């Protein structure tokens, strides 16, 4: 019986055209992705070390495309493939015929299910097949490794197969029991939420394991297992069946199995007559009709009114009717509830930096929590457009409606308006939920107006355009489901595809918004409103005209073919509709031309490719001047007039250029931004312009009298930088209404700069350029003649007059000499009293200022002024910042060297960038990092990152502005790593050692994760090529450990000496070799190996507890016995690890549990640096109290991919040590 039903189901499945359509959709999607990633279609441009056909890459492609919109699409396909296996018998009224036949329940239930499952598996296999074929086509490209079939089969078996089974069962059982696919569709939405939530909760490092087990698709488990896989491991390893993946898969297969069994046991053939309903409805007793008492002739006379006014009334009545029908739908209510719930949950977990929350300012709520809800709105729009266009036909009410005297236009636009009502209601729900979140978090600074503008202005406008398109598509398509698909295709997939192909012109990107910038508390919506409205008008006009065309095909009456419908409506086109249609066309053309004029005529529209070609052109033409000796800037004096409300600046000033070489110089090379309007760019000496390439901004000037060694010359320049209309994308966020922040990189450069050259070697090759090292070698003596911040200057004198509008304050490095108002503008004269690097900024905004002083105990007569320029509402963390500045100044002046300036200023700038940056005595600091952080002082693990960021930036006044390395490998070690170290020390003084633990865990986690993404080479810390994960994240961990090994004072003394020797030096600049030598000098002989391990090589440990126990002695003491392991590996630039012998000093720690007021805390009983001279050792210690936990390297000072197994509680089984998986002990046979 099972066999017959099963085979019948399969035959039916393979007969259906939809099976093949779904198969081809998957096939081509994955085929295309495969072609792009394997380089057959050359779009991906960055360098990469990983193969796209490794098991890990195949798995992440399969899993990755099960997220977000694609996950939803997969779920929807699953519903249509599997949910109906039994339900269809009911739908087509087959059940009375079937259930009276002598078929067994198990044969029917499992036969139907397995048949549908087999068909579904066939459809989903198209994913891996498509990707496999694309990879085969790419064989021979760099990114395609040797082919192994099992690299494709394994991920399919571990992920696709169970996922299809789990979801399939759930959909099948849900649909069978509720006798409606609606519940399955609803479950798709639940899954979407589940995915988003697991994504966000992993932002907190402690939740990763939990998410790995609970997330139903194995995505988080896969992430967790492979998170630290180096490129080499990604290329060679299969997906291991280890704890997380196994538990996750078993858990969900178990759930699926449970559902199947419950489903089977509960299934009865008689069930169909009584579907299980989630919402029990009251059934009213039927009323027996009585006999008519009147005659039809007694019917009251009514007036029918077909005036224009009455037609408008009809329109809004109908809209209201449709609206009520939609919102009374239980699907709608559930989605709303889920959306609101998801907003709360997601808000709880997002916006977290280092585990610390931000204040729920309105834009945060709108962006983080609202974006998911907005996705729901989009889904609801797509769903409801289908439902309401097809409702009349689905309920067979279409002929009744069609014969009433309402026009097609009224019918269509009433639905349009109704959907807008629904959208408004949903947006309102977002607003109310958002405000509720703010209140529940105790945040009362609520910007209602910002909610209204964002939601009911910007978002509603954009969504209205989408609604129009979806409705029009549903009118035109022959069935609802094709309509759904086309709606998803045009509103979501096409945009994603265009972005993938880098087709960015807003004229054909549906519903494009033009250049966008996020909302900033400082700058509001900024200047994007105008271009936004223009683009939305353009799209709205297009959609209205499409809708008016679609209405000609409105499904009125019985006709189904488009041609017949078109002809049926040919006599019913009102004049007004024609008028509106032509107006829309004119508006669309007009706006289109205006947009074209702005993006193509006023501005140069370049595709990503054209932009690259420009850089290539520049390099090919002018690289030859790189070695031409140039005079260097020794002074910069500029007048910068900022016009915030015109978003323009006017710069007039000069550089003094000095010939620092010992030969005379006869030509000056000037490199400038060709989009700026230059009035003057000339040396103040007789000269001839050899050429001036105004397109690329490159000018060569020949001096009539060569500049003798030691002589100077003045370079005058004046330019205006003003916006012309709007661009296609990339809103310019540097000069804005409130919060201008520019630096001297927009000023002319002297000489050829290689900063603008293409970096990706893959791209360089395709343009016929030579491979280029990311940075010059550490000992390159020529490169060390420049510091890594500036290629045309060393230390310069600086003076400026900045002017701005009278309501703003303008700030630049230096000390304020004078402030005055003239001609309705406010002027500030700043002058620096010492030489600085050629690195300065100009800032202007409406600021409040908070002032304080730090008094140096050694020099009480010379207080350092502290000033914070902040946006008036952002007062939350000002005191923390001031405290941090004071602590930093104390620590750095005491341990490193005196502070070279008399002032520290922090200046808030809009959140268009999320960084803080240190300029001489000036620290611009983004509003999004720190100013709105919500530090929980009661939680010892909550990291005070405003304090930390401030300390880091203040440290740059030493590391960067006193000592700066040459433009070679490893120089960021002396800048960023030492600033990290300095900030860590200040933090440790303030918050204690315990607070460092979580911070360092984040740093280690980030380092281990980011190194897996390295596209070129991972380098040891001292050769770091501006790789952030090395100089920040690894640097923190390494320096903290170094301090632990050699002692804080010893280390600081070395730093002090190093500063003394190198501060404010002239070229050649110092390098990391000098720095590491300075460390070696102070490191005792037996620890010298740590310098090699930490700075000169890439070293990874696997420390673990193998066994532990304790005995109580007669004297009330405890003897603890520990078996500990320490494996050590050296890694190469792509993460290939080789085990090396251990002979290292590692911490051993034993801890007791201590009762404290707020729960139990751990108390250190013993911490001891122990020499691990064998891979595993058993040791015994005696402690005074009852031990609770013990282990090796308990504070994770050493870099370890499995920090969790470093310690173990007594009585528990120690965690598994990964000596083989991931890191191979012996060279595994190299795959062919």
């Amino acid at each position, binding site marked *: 019986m099972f066999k017959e039903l099963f085979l019948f189901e399969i035959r039916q499945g393979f007969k259906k055209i939809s099976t093949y359509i779904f198969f081809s959709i998957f096939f081509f999607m994955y085929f295309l992705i495969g072609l792009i990633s394997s380089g057959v279609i050359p779009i991906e441009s960055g360098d990469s070390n990983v193969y796209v056909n490794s098991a890990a890459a195949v798995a992440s492609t399969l899993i990755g495309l099960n997220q977000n919109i694609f996950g939803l699409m997969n779920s929807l396909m699953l519903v249509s493939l599997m949910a109906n296996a039994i339900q269809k018998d009911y739908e087509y009224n087959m059940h009375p015929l079937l259930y009276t036949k002598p078929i067994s329940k198990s044969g029917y239930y499992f036969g139907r299910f397995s048949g549908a499952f087999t068909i579904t598996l066939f459809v989903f296999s198209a994913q891996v097949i498509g990707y496999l074929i694309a990879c085969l086509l790419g064989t021979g490209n760099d990114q395609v490794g040797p082919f192994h079939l099992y690299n494709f089969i394994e991920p399919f078996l571990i992920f696709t197969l169970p996922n299809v089974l789990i979801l399939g069962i759930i959909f099948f059982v849900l649909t069978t029991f509720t006798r409606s696919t609606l519940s399955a569709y609803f479950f798709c939405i639940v899954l979407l939420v589940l995915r988003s939530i697991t994504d966000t909760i992993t932002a907190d490092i402690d939740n990763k394991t939990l998410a790995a087990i609970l997330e139903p698709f194995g995505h988080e488990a896969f992430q967790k297992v492979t998170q630290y896989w180096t490129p080499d491991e990604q290329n060679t390893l299969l997906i291991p069946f280890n704890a997380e993946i196994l538990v996750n898969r078993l858990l969900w297969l178990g759930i699926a199995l449970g559902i199947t069994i419950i489903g089977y046991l509960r299934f009865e053939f008689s069930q169909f007559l009584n579907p299980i309903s989630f919402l029990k409805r009251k059934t009213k007793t039927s009323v027996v009709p009585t006999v008519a008492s009147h005659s039809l002739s007694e019917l009251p006379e009514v007036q029918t009114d077909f005036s224009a006014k009455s037609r408008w009334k009809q329109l809004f009545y109908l809209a209201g009717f449709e609206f009520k029908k939609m919102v009374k739908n239980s699907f709608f209510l559930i989605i709303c509830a889920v959306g609101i719930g998801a907003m709360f949950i997601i808000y709880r977990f997002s916006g977290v930096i280092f585990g610390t929350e931000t204040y729920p300012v309105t834009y945060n709520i709108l962006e983080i929590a609202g974006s998911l809800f907005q996705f729901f709105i989009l889904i609801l729009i797509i769903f409801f457009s289908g439902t309401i266009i097809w409702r009349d036909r689905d309920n067979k009410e279409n002929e*009744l409606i069609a*014969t009433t005297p309402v026009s097609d236009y009224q019918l269509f636009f009433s639905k349009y308006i109704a959907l807008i009502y629904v959208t408004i209601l949903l947006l309102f729900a977002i607003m109310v939920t958002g405000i509720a979140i703010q209140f529940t978090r105790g945040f009362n600074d609520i910007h209602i107006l910002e909610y209204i503008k964002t939601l009911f202005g910007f978002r509603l406008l954009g969504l209205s355009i989408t609604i129009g398109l979806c409705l029009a598509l549903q009118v035109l398509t022959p069935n609802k489901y094709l309509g759904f698909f086309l709606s998803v295709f045009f509103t979501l997939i096409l945009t994603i595809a265009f972005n993938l192909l880098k087709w960015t012109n807003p004229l054909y990107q549906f519903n494009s918004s033009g250049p966008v910038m996020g909302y900033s508390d400082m700058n509001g919506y900024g200047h994007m409103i105008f271009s936004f409205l223009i683009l939305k008008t353009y799209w709205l006009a297009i959609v209205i005209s499409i809708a008016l065309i679609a209405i000609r095909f409105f499904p009125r009456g019985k006709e189904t073919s488009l041609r017949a419908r078109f002809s049926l409506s040919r006599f019913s086109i009102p004049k007004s509709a024609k008028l509106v249609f032509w107006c829309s066309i004119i508006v669309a053309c007009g706006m289109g031309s205006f947009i074209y004029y702005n993006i193509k005529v006023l501005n140069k529209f370049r595709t990503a490719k054209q932009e690259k070609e420009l850089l290539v052109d520049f390099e090919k033409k002018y690289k030859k001047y790189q070695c031409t000796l140039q005079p260097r800037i020794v002074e910069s004096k500029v007048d910068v007039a900022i016009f915030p409300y015109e978003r323009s600046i006017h710069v007039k000033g000069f550089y003094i250029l000095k010939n620092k070489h010992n030969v005379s110089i006869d030509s000056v090379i000037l490199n400038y931004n060709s989009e700026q309007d230059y009035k003057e760019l000339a040396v103040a000496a007789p000269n001839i312009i050899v050429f001036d390439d105004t397109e690329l901004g490159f000018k060569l000037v020949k001096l009539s009298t060569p500049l003798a060694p030691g002589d100077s010359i003045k370079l005058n320049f004046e330019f205006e930088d003003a916006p012309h209309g709007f661009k296609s994308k990339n809103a310019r966020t540097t000069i804005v209404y409130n919060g201008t922040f520019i630096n001297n990189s927009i000023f002319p450069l002297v000489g050829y700069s290689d900063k603008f050259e293409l970096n990706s070697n893959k791209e360089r090759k395709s343009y016929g350029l030579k491979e280029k090292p990311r940075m010059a070698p550490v000992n390159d003596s020529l490169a060390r003649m420049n510091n890594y911040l500036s290629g045309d200057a060393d230390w310069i004198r600086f003076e400026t007059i900045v002017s701005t509008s009278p309501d703003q304050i303008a700030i630049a490095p230096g000390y304020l000499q004078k402030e005055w108002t003239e001609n309705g503008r406010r002027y500030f004269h700043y002058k620096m009293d010492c030489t600085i690097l050629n690195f300065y900024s100009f800032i202007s905004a409406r600021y409040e200022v908070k002032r304080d002083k730090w008094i140096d105990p050694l020099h009480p007569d010379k207080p350092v002024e502290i000033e914070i320029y902040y946006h008036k509402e952002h007062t939350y963390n000002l005191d923390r910042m001031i405290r941090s500045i004071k602590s930093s100044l104390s620590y750095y002046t005491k341990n490193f060297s005196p502070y070279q300036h008399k002032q520290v200023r922090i200046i808030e700038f809009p959140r268009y960038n999320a960084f803080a940056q240190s300029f001489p005595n000036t620290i611009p600091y983004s509003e999004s990092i720190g100013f709105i952080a919500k530090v929980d002082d009661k939680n010892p693990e909550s990291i005070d990152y405003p304090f930390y960021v401030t300390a880091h930036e203040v440290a740059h006044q030493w590391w960067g502005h006193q000592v700066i390395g040459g433009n070679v490998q490893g120089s960021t070690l002396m800048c960023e790593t030492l600033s990290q170290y300095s900030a860590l020390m200040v933090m440790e003084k303030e918050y204690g050692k315990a607070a460092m633990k979580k911070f360092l865990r984040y740093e280690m986690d980030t380092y281990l994760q980011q190194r897996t993404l390295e596209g070129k080479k991972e380098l040891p810390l001292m050769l770091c090529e501006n790789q952030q994960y090395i100089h920040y994240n690894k640097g923190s961990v390494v320096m903290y450990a170094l301090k632990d090994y050699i002692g804080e004072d010893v280390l600081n003394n070395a730093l002090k000496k190093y500063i003394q020797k190198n501060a404010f030096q002239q070229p050649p600049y110092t390098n990391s070799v000098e720095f590491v030598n300075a460390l070696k000098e102070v490191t005792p002989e037996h620890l010298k190996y740590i310098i090699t391990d930490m700075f000169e090589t890439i070293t990874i440990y696997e420390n673990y507890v193998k066994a532990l126990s304790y005995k109580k002695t007669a004297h009330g003491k405890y003897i603890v016995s520990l078996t500990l392991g320490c494996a050590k590996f050296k890694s190469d630039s792509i993460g290939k690890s080789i085990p090396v012998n251990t002979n290292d000093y590692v911490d051993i720690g034993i801890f007791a549990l201590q009762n404290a007021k707020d729960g139990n805390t751990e108390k250190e009983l013993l911490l001891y640096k122990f020499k691990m001279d064998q891979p595993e050792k058993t040791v015994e210690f005696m402690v005074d109290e009852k031990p609770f936990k013990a282990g090796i390297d308990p504070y994770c000072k050493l870099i370890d991919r499995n920090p969790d197994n470093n310690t173990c509680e007594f009585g528990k089984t120690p965690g598994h040590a990964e000596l083989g998986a991931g890191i191979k002990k012996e060279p595994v046979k190299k795959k062919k």
Partner: protein
Amino acid sequence: MKLSITNINKTYPNGVKALDNINLEIETGMFGMLGPNGAGKSTLMRTISALQDPDQGSIQLGDIDVIKQKSELRKVLGYLPQDFGFYPKVTAVDQLTHFAVLKGVSNKQERKEIVHALLNQTNLFEARNRYISTFSGGMRQRFGIAQALLGNPKLVIVDEPTAGLDPLERNRFHNLLSEIGENIIVILSTHIVDDVKDLCARMVIMNHGKILMEGTPSKAIDTVKEKVWSKLIEKQELNDYKKNFVVISSKVADGKLLLHVYADENPGEQFEQIIPNLEDVYFSLITKN
């Protein structure tokens, strides 16, 4: 007011000729359209209701050109299709109010009155707050007529309204239809002879898209007067009779077959002449074509 249908033709894409050169003049009063399933009645009804365009021909209702002035027609049309349904979870009173708005009854008070009156008239007043989806077949049809009568229609078209109703409900429905005034045109399409016999002053019989007969029911009966003969036969004899006579109907009665045959003269063999009814007319026409 007169409905003139001139030279209407309609062929469906699958090649079925649904309407074959139909010409009709329909005056006020109840007009019956009798024909078997698939005769083209519904196509004709829908064409008159402007739900479909004919391939050729014209339809004129008074001054209204039905094909070109669809919205004018809709203002005076009441239509009850053969196969229809209603939105789920909408009560009768809400649904009827909805139709009242669509039909242009814009005054709220009037709307309420007419809705209540119609529900009363169709015996649905007490069920007015029930969802229509819970109505029985007869109630649904009565509700259908109620919506068709909204907004002073000049032309009411009801397409197979009694199919599937029990005799009691059908009776009720007939009563209801008979109440519709004499001064508007009511077209009733049906395959049940009694519907036409009881209700219609004028009628046509249709089959294969053609009009086979037009006139009053009594005139129709006249066409077969003294030409219908009946006889009780054994079941197995039917084939022989079919070969030799024009059999217009055969009914089982007491284990035997009651045969009606059409013949201008007495066919002999113990056939008895009977007084024909409309059914004999209908069956004879259908059989002959």
